[in-house]
């Protein structure tokens, strides 16, 4: 390696377009947003550096902080429902699907994944119509099984609306954990399963004792994907409840709060600086989640090499 290698221009040519687009539209705006959160405009219209002033407003001013904590709390509940309902059901479906010699497995797989490819607009309106007391599909069906008294306009009641929306989102995205876990289960080598069967471990106990420990890394991945997806969610709530995330902000999550603040709604004017502040807060929330996953969870999960 004594002689200098010639400059390899082709490497730069290969990398340049992707790097340019990615940096210009993702990294630079992200940092732009972070800096914007440290700026504000004076009454004279001058743009000035205010340090953490915007954050002081966001967390200190009761008007802002109430809305923020409400959105964060709702968002956390939204996430909890996904973790408690979506992922366990997804794992269950995947476990059943991966049973050897199951007939029609491909059909089930394809059908269960359909809601995931539909857009939020479709999903939001479809469920809004089905749950609507005017149309009467939901009350009619409850009546059929004799539970009509349980019906309530779920999307319109403060105490149910958020949970209902979270369950709709679960309905839509259950295909993703199902597929990822299904893939992980298929990648367990047959010898491991055969050895377990030799030792008399079959059925449910085989799942709990052999398979579950082996798919823990995939469960970690779906958890962090769920986390990032949920704390970045916006569309479903916007479509079903509008930017005001009604009733009375009961379904307001960080995404809709950011949209309202940044863009304004009805009489309130949009505020890019407070918008950037909320986006920055979201950035740190997501970053914390990702770091917890990368440094605390992922490193402790034992990976098995076959």
């Amino acid at each position, binding site marked *: 390696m004594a002689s200098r290698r010639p400059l*390899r221009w*082709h*490497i730069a*040519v*290969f*990398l340049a*377009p*992707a*790097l340019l*687009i*990615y940096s*210009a*539209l*993702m*990294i*630079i*705006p*992200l940092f*732009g*947003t972070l800096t*914007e959160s440290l700026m504000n405009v004076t009454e004279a219209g001058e743009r000035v550096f205010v340090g953490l002033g915007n954050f002081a407003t966001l967390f200190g001013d009761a008007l802002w902080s109430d809305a923020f904590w409400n959105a964060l709390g709702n968002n956390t509940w939204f996430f909890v429902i996904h973790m408690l309902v979506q992922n366990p059901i997804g794992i*269950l*479906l995947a476990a*059943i699907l991966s049973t050897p010699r*199951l007939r029609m497995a491909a*059909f*089930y797989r*394809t*059908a*269960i994944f*359909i*809601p995931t*490819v*539909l*857009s*939020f*607009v*479709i999903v939001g*309106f*479809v469920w809004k*119509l*089905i749950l609507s007391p005017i*149309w*009467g*599909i939901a009350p009619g069906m409850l009546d059929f099984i004799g539970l009509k008294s349980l019906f309530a306009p779920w999307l319109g009641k403060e105490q149910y609306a958020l949970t209902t929306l979270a369950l709709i989102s679960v309905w839509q995205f259950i295909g993703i954990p199902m*597929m*990822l876990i*299904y*893939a*992980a289960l298929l990648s367990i080598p047959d010898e491991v399963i055969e050895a377990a069967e030799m030792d008399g471990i079959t*059925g449910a106990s085989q799942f709990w004792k052999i398979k579950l420990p082996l798919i823990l890394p*995939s469960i970690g991945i779906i958890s962090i994907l769920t986390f990032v997806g949920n704390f970045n969610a*916006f*569309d479903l709530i*916007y*479509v079903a409840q509008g930017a005001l995330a009604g009733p009375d902000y009961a379904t307001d999550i960080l995404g809709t709060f950011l949209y309202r603040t940044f863009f304004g709604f009805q009489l309130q004017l949009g505020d*890019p600086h407070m918008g950037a502040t909320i*986006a920055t807060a979201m950035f740190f929330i*997501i*970053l914390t989640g990702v770091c917890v996953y990368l440094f605390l969870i992922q490193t402790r999960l034992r990976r098995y090499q076959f």
Partner: protein
Amino acid sequence: MQARQNLGRTIAAHAVLITWTLVALFPVFVIVVNSFKSRKAIFADPLSLPLPSNFDMVGYTTVMHQGDFFQYFLNSMIVTVGSLFCVLLFGAMAAFALSEYRFKGNTLMGLYLALGIMIPIRLGTVAILQMMVATGLVNTRTALVLVYSAQGLPLAVFILSEFMRTVSDDLKNAGRIDGLSEYTIFFRLVLPLVRPAMATVAVFTMIPIWNDLWFPLILAPGEEVKTITLGSQVFIGQFVTDWNAVLAALSLAILPVLVLYLLFSRQLIRGITAGAVK
């Protein structure tokens, strides 16, 4: 005894799967079925199939006359195909550079590009909008194509570079000995070999772009550049009380996605089961 237990388990397995399949398909079924019925029948008997007695296409006629759905559809196509082209071409080029050559900063570059997999591009919206206003790209399809390309690139580079590592070195070196340039090696030898991976990346990239509401709402809300997702959202919002029109618009919005999905589902599922979990 053993056989009976197995039979019972199989029946239970099918019961669970059929239940969830019904849960997954029922809402879509209800919407499509009712879009072909008269207003009266929609309310009187929402679960029945459209019969000759209550068959009515009035919803579809309203949609055709009111919304400019063809234009919306075209916009979505342009934006999706344009972004896909950028993501696949530029993503594959970058993936090739990262997986093929050893150079200073290779790992760092990979990490830099991987950052975008975890951090959502939406968080930069404030600055993206300012930039688009400054460059005059607001209300253009170009703005959307650029944003979606940036959004899709990280995952594309990540998946494609995994696949490119598996392309045999002998093949590329044989090409070099024959005097092929690095560009020819990439376009003629490597790209055709990673075509299956490209298809997977294409499906993964396409679905969120086609379905996105956030960026069309913020960057391109103008009538002539509206995507179908935003278009149907606005249309349905205006026609809330016209149930026929709403149901017809929803059915029309479901159709293209469903057809695309059924065409590509095998590719998508193979992609998830092969590349995603390793």
